[in-house]
């Protein structure tokens, strides 16, 4: 059953990532240079939609709160984010879209994945040094959500209803998706390159 769901949801995710343009480095490049924010609007709307459905479903008892899986906050999250951002911009791929881009037939994605496997291996080899540096130690409670979600395994950073805050933030993401212009780089509007 779990494997069937993995195939179904995984394939659906790969399919939609391709259809929104996320597997295309031209679209990623357009977004990160702020010249074409179409994909940014898509992502913001997706986060907002997911958030509203999930927290709304939890409030109605339709979604199992125990399915939530919150990652720990530590200084390394920020440092890792800085590294990922640079590599993401240079290559035009993040881990999920790089894997999908291979499925679309892009040869450079093969090199990206090979580099990724080596990068992950390099982290595995250097993990003890990071661990002893203290940069992997929890900050602000580690695995926390911004509000306190009833019935969840995770603590809230603030003593407000995590469900209500989740829906409110979801609405903010949707709103930002709507008001964000397609281009904010200062008049240099360019067409999306043909594939």
């Amino acid at each position: 059953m779990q494997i069937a769901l993995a195939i179904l949801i995984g394939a659906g995710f790969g399919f939609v990532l391709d259809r929104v343009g996320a597997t295309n480095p031209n679209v990623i490049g357009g977004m990160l240079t702020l010249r074409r924010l179409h994909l940014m609007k898509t992502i913001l709307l997706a986060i907002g939609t997911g958030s509203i459905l999930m927290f709304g479903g939890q409030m109605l008892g339709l979604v199992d709160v125990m399915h939530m899986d919150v990652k720990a906050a530590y200084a390394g999250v920020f440092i890792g984010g800085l590294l990922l951002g640079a590599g993401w911009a240079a290559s035009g791929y993040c881990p999920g879209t790089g894997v999908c881009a291979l499925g679309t037939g892009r040869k450079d994605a093969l090199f990206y994945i090979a580099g990724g496997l080596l990068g992950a291996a390099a982290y595995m080899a250097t993990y003890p040094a990071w661990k002893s540096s203290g940069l992997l130690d929890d900050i602000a409670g580690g695995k926390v959500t911004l509000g306190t979600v009833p019935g969840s395994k995770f603590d809230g950073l603030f003593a407000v209803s995590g469900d209500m805050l989740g829906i409110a933030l979801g609405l903010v993401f949707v709103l930002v998706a709507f008001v964000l212009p397609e281009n904010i780089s200062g008049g240099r509007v360019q067409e999306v390159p043909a594939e």
Partner: protein
Amino acid sequence: MTLNWKLGGLLLGAVFFAAVLLVKPIGVSTQFVILDGIIADSVATDFITQSDEGYTSTNAYMAKSGGKYAKNAANPLNYSFIFVLAMVGGAFLSTVLRGGISKEERSAPAIWRANYGDTPWKRYAVAFVGGFVVLYGARLAGGCTSGHMMSGMMQTSLSGYIFAAGAFLTAVPTAMLMYKEG
């Protein structure tokens, strides 16, 4: 060919919701570690070992958190690993249905050509180094764009916001410096 952002955003949000409704939030970058573990264990058979207490590995990262990565690498037919393989299939299906991408585009994207000309091997080198830095960073952060940014911010996780701030802080200037055209 690209969906408009309203339909695309709703569909992408629906997939993230379906994942958390039926199983758990989506994440991808851990599976690079799992594939590394599968490869390492096939080359050096004592890389992952099983005992009465469960799985462990000669690598400290592989063995952490009670050996859960070691266990998944020893049993690749698990939800998260199959999920990522299925993503490749889903993207393949989508591409085939929309008619595929051009031969030129397959070797180097248009934005690369606009800035660096017809230099596919230079592009491969940048993709390789980019992949290295992305996955090193993702493992240090404990997640990537899927797990931290999308699944994380969707769940109002503090770490998701910290990650997104770091990622965009370097991604935007890097893209602006490297891709002035296209």
